[in-house]
């Protein structure tokens, strides 16, 4: 084995640039053609798109469940569906929205965008990324197949014990729900690990932490929140399965377990989850606001501090979901205060966005319209949240439609609106084409107005005493008109989504061709062509400010010298992003798929027998060894130095 110096291998630089470099990199970073390439790819962009599309499909499925429920509730004493069907529907809707749409799609956007925003060639641990997608897909397919077979879970999206325990929920429904949790947690945790490593180690030279785009900050804080919160729900659901399958007594009061233990473990995850959805969305809002106001985001340090503070505070408030279970006096005061405190960083961010627009020259294109809709809707949802932080009010409206109204205002306002804006904004980067502006505006206004019509009346319904999770209601309660109104609003929202999707498909084929930077935005993702090549950037960009493309109008500073005959990327130091190591990046591989299949077999069969955990471990281990065993002979360069 000869030891070669860095200079002897093909690299980009003065001699190799332009089309010749592109061709060379495309050979090194390209996938196999056709289906095999689709299965084995480790490209963060392909996997990201796949994740996004799958998340959208789950959004549609959950939306259709919602429409079905609203149809049932449109008139009093409706007998269109059985109570059992309704139970399955709200469980599927809530579960799908939270676990299969909102959290994954935010991570999916990060999978696609983060490596481009920080100027690297691929995400860290790209095969883990592929594995994560297959796990997510398997979990989602499993629960929806169960629903079609009429064994869909029916204990609500938070499956409280004792209702979900072996005594009150015999059969397999809750087991399927709990195992779906395991699938999605594995997937989400894997992505969180990748994002932490990517963001801390792979930033372009010069991109210090203080120059990091706000979406990347959001993704980083979110990834840490995933890491600290998801183990809680994974543990909770594993203990639930154990109670149901092998007769442990964690939640069984008769044998000195405690049903409230479930609520603690679930909400220790469940409250942070809301911010896991919301923080990336604030990233979208910052980027859109900045690009369309044509000035850097106002008070960047305050924005970053707010993100971090929100992330920390989110772990201290889970008990506010348990006010109705009875707490010590001091507990009430503490959790009320903590909950009120969470609204402070959110308010700071909102002021900063408004200041950015105020001081800039805003262009009200579709993405910015969604930002305005977000601000309006989220503030309403935030206000009803502050109301419920007060224990007497919470006890009054607990489990009524007031709560349903509140969380749809924060979830749809705080996550779906920014997401639709982000989708429109980055669509040209994803596809190379612009979305149609007129259809976009039509969809926007329908969705915004339809949403208010659907959900504002629910505040009143809740105050008038209508409980959530009821499949029908009697005529003489005075709830009829408001329910009908809510249903009409829901259908307007659904129609708007249809327009949005038609627009996306139509634009994909015939939209106006977008250049590299159609919005004249400042971030690195706009420095490369649309859609980006497999290797993202021909040379590694260098950054010297927070808004690199606005500050380098004539040419982009870059660094050369990464190998072009092998997949290589640049590691930089954590704080200052000083170039440090050239690191190999994984080649395409089918092992992640095999590993995901083996794990899926283990998870699904463990619903039926606990032995599956023992026996199933062997194929999983075999697949993991196959995955990590080096495939290519040792290369010329990375030998003992």
């Amino acid at each position, binding site marked *: 084995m000869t030891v070669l110096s860095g200079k002897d291998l093909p690299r980009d630089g003065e001699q190799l640039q332009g089309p010749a470099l592109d061709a060379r990199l495309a050979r090194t970073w390209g996938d196999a053609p056709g289906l095999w390439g689709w299965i084995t790819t480790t490209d963060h962009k392909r996997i990201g798109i796949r994740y996004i599309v799958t998340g959208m499909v789950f959004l549609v499925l959950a939306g259709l469940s919602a429409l079905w429920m609203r149809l049932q509730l449109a008139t009093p004493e409706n007998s269109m569906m059985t109570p059992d069907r309704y139970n399955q529907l709200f469980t599927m809707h809530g579960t799908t929205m939270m676990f299969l749409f909102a959290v994954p799609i935010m991570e999916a956007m990060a999978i696609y965008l983060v490596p481009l925003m920080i100027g690297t060639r691929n995400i860290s641990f790209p095969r883990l990324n592929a594995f994560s997608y297959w796990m997510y897909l398997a979990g989602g397919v499993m629960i929806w197949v169960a629903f079609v077979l009429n064994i869909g879970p029916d204990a609500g999206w938070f499956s409280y014990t004792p209702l979900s325990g072996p005594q009150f929920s015999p059969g397999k429904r809750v087991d399927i729900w709990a195992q779906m949790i395991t699938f999605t947690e594995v997937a989400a945790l894997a992505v969180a690990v990748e994002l932490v490593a990517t963001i801390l180690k792979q930033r372009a030279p010069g991109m210090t932490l203080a120059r990091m785009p706000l979406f990347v900050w959001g993704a980083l804080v979110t990834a840490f929140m995933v890491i600290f919160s998801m183990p809680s729900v994974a543990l909770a659901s594993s203990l639930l399965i154990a109670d149901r399958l092998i007769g442990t007594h964690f939640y069984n009061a008769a044998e000195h377990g405690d049903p409230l233990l479930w609520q603690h473990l679930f909400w220790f995850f469940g409250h942070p989850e809301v911010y896991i959805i919301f923080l990336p969305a604030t990233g979208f809002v910052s980027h859109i606001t900045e690009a369309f106001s044509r000035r850097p985001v106002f008070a960047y340090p305050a924005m970053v501090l707010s993100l971090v503070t929100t992330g920390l505070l989110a772990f201290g408030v889970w008990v506010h979901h348990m006010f109705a279970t009875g707490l010590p006096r001091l507990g009430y005061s503490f959790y009320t205060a903590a909950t009120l405190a969470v609204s402070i960083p959110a308010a700071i961010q909102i002021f900063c966005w408004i200041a950015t627009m105020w001081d800039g020259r805003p262009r009200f294109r579709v993405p910015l319209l969604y930002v305005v809709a977000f601000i309006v809707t989220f503030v309403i949802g935030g206000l009803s949240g502050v109301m419920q932080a007060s224990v007497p009010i919470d006890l009054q409206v607990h489990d009524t439609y007031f709560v349903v109204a509140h969380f749809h205002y924060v979830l749809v306002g705080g996550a779906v609106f920014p997401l639709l804006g982000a989708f429109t904004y980055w669509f040209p980067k994803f596809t190379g084409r612009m979305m149609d502006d007129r259809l976009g505006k039509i969809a926007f206004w329908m969705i915004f107005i339809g949403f208010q019509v659907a959900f504002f009346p629910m505040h009143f319904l809740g105050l008038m005493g209508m409980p959530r999770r009821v499949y029908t209601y009697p005529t003489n309660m005075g709830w009829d008109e408001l329910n009908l109104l809510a249903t009409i609003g829901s259908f307007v929202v659904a129609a708007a989504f249809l327009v949005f999707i038609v627009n996306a498909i139509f634009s994909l084929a015939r939209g106006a061709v977008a250049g590299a930077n159609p919005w004249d935005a400042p971030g690195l993702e706009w420095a490369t062509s649309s859609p980006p090549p497999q290797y993202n950037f021909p040379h590694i960009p260098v950054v010297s400010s927070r808004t690199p493309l606005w500050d380098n109008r004539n040419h982009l500073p870059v660094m050369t010298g990464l190998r072009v005959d092998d997949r290589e990327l640049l590691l930089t130091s954590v704080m200052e992003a000083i170039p440090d190591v050239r690191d190999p990046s994984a080649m395409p591989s089918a092992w992640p798929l095999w590993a995901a299949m083996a794990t899926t077999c283990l998870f699904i069969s463990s619903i039926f027998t606990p032995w599956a955990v023992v026996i199933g471990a062997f194929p999983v281990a075999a697949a993991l*060894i196959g995955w990590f065993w080096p495939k290519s002979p040792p290369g010329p360069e990375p030998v003992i*130095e």
Partner: protein
Amino acid sequence: MTLPVRFAGDLAELPTSAFGHRSLTWWGIVAFFLIEGTTFALAIGTYFYLMGGEQTWPPAPFSPPNPIAGTIFTVLLLLSEIPNTLAKRAAERKDLRALRKYLLIVCAMCAVMVIPRAFEFASLNVSWKDNAYGSVIWTLLFLHVTNFLTDFADSLVLAGLLFTKHSVESRRFVDAAENAMYWRFVWLCWLPIYVLIYWLPRWVS
């Protein structure tokens, strides 16, 4: 379409592997520590939560677990840190022969440890089906067994790899150093669990 570029530096002379926080693997492993550590912490929280609901611990009529097997396991586990540290240093010196030797010693010790580990389950004096106390101490032990077996398997595969042509790649040494770090995590996590399973029930009962 895209901007013209201006060359501002060259990366060709950078190394292709580095130890510790300079490597990507290290960050991946640290993130996994955080995940597993959080899981252990929450399981321990569950233990105390359930303990708070009991009059005595272990609840009557159960007697505390017999600590012999667990203690033998703990002593061996702590002793294995000696070859583990030597393996880590060998990896950092890129001394392949020493690394092979110490890693094999660690693996051999693991194989021996499996025996007291198996007896631990028989010394708990309670079944997971008996009550919530039984459920939680079985769970703590089960979680740690999984953790232990995972790293045992990982060390075996790595040791095997060191006897192939792939052992010349400098990344193998980074892998080995990180594997040694993982082993430290395994015994660090075990210490509180050991106390909670075997000793706390004796002290408070």
